[in-house]
């Protein structure tokens, strides 16, 4: 009883104090911005800080190292499009994007630290876009730029092939990461699912069934590369407009779906 009355007394007193001048009030504007700088910086730091980041170095080592070696030893003139185009776009770039794209948000979901980020008014789409941007930056740094450097070693820094490879690799960084960021929000086995997509869909079915190419990111990348490089040895099957159009559609759908799923992010309760 005494406790009860003390409680109600406290309640009647406090609101004035609560309303009056506590420091640290908000800066008027709603939490806006498409890409949140804080999330982006935290993600870059966290991703580069993990041990997994050592794997990121594999792609540039392979691309640049092998290109330098082939430049010195190979006699066939078709190795640059075959190695950097076909091998680069179906193996090196997608795997780099898979490792990066699944770690920018997947690791935080796995260990639960995402809660600290989500317990703020930052819009979920903005969280996804910030994570996605971090993944694109890292994949460009560890995949697309090494592609260009390797292309420059192979055919010269201003060659159409080097520039085409760079454009295709940048496009691949964008589209793959949209897919892989979405996968890590949807499933805790994002790496496995991503690998299945790369191996079975793009690797196997993409070679056997023509229609599959319309939904294969490596084909978008090759199409974009080929529109600059005009090199038959890239084995590009899609036109520039199809590649860009499909790439934009896939990227937007994947990111919108990821944001939607992140809005329903649930913590496991007890009793189950």
């Amino acid at each position: 009883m005494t406790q009860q009355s003390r409680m109600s007394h406290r309640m009647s007193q406090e609101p004035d104090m609560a309303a009056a001048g506590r420091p640290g009030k908000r800066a008027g504007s709603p939490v806006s911005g498409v890409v949140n700088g804080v999330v982006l910086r935290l993600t870059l730091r966290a991703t580069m800080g993990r041990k997994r980041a050592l794997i990121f170095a594999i792609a540039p080592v392979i691309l640049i190292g092998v290109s330098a070696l082939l430049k010195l030893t190979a006699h066939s003139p078709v190795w640059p499009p075959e190695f950097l185009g076909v091998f680069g776009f179906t193996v090196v770039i997608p795997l780099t994007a898979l490792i990066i794209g699944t770690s920018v948000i997947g690791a935080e979901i796995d260990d639960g630290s995402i809660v600290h980020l989500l317990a703020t008014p930052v819009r979920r789409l903005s969280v996804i876009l910030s994570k996605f941007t971090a993944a694109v930056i890292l994949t460009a740094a560890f995949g697309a730029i090494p592609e260009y450097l390797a292309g420059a070693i192979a055919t010269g820094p201003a060659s159409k092939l080097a520039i085409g490879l760079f454009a295709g690799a940048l496009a691949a960084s964008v589209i793959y990461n949209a897919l892989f960021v979405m996968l890590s929000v949807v499933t805790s086995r994002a790496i496995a699912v991503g690998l299945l997509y790369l191996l079975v869909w793009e690797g196997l079915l993409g070679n056997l069934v023509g229609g599959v190419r319309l939904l294969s990111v490596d084909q978008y990348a090759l199409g974009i590369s080929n529109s600059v490089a005009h090199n038959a040895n890239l084995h590009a099957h899609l036109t520039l407009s199809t590649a860009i159009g499909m790439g934009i559609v896939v990227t937007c759908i994947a990111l919108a779906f990821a944001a939607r799923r992140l809005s329903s992010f649930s913590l496991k309760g007890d009793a189950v």
Partner: protein
Amino acid sequence: MTTIELGNVSRWYGNVVAVNDISMTVGPGVTGLLGPNGAGKSTVLHMIAGFLEPSRGELTVAGMASWRNPEIFRTIGLVPERDSVYAFLTGAEFVTATARLHELADPGAAARRAIGIVEMAEAQDRKISTYSKGMRQRIKVAAALVHDPEVIVLDEPFNGMDPRQRLHMMDLLAGLGQQGRVILFSSHILEEVERLSGTIQVIVGGRLAASGDFRAIRRLMTSRPHVFLVRSSDDRLLGSALIGRPAVTGVELTPRGLQVRASDYGTFARELAGITRDQGIRLRELLPADESLESVFAYLIAS
């Protein structure tokens, strides 16, 4: 006045009911959510904080639904149970980053204020990975406080803390409650809730078993029938004397001693002393046989 309101809230996973038809109002001050492990406390807290969708019922915080509503975090500060934070950051960086995510006008000042409240200023420039469990807990509270929320929800804030850290956290929460904030924390330890909160909500098996003033519930707990195990120099004589008293509802001779059921804890304790003295019986041992929290909770559900 800011409140948390639950109206007939249920949550189930497939066929398993985790929370069953709970209605409660949590107002300013410190409220403890008490219950054994697996009772549904975390489920309730997660639903309040917008990290779980109620399967049925109405749930609002300061009048707003919290599910799929990030705006709610302008009002709520959440201290999750799991210990995972961005351990590569220093304490100050973590709290300042949280202030920036809330888009506060002066993130640095807000972070310093929050870190000051939890008394972590000394360790704020160390990496969180070097913190003890209690320090991590405090820096999480600082991050939850940084935007000066009306409502603070803490999931098992005392878990893994040593007694000193526990006391410190209790003082901290009591102070925040006195400022008129709505503080809701969960615990499975009766003493923690007893020390800290005037108001408690007891959850057992997904249901609200008791609710309201702690003292009233405490009385309810102590006035329930108690079972004791008594060993004395003459159990049979003691038993025959005890059964004549109104406070005693049952006596049984067992190989381990005399099992006594008493309807009133206080009266039984006083009378036992008188009887043994009058009869010249020496009391060797007096053990409460059902003082586990579970039996207390079980009694609360039944009543």
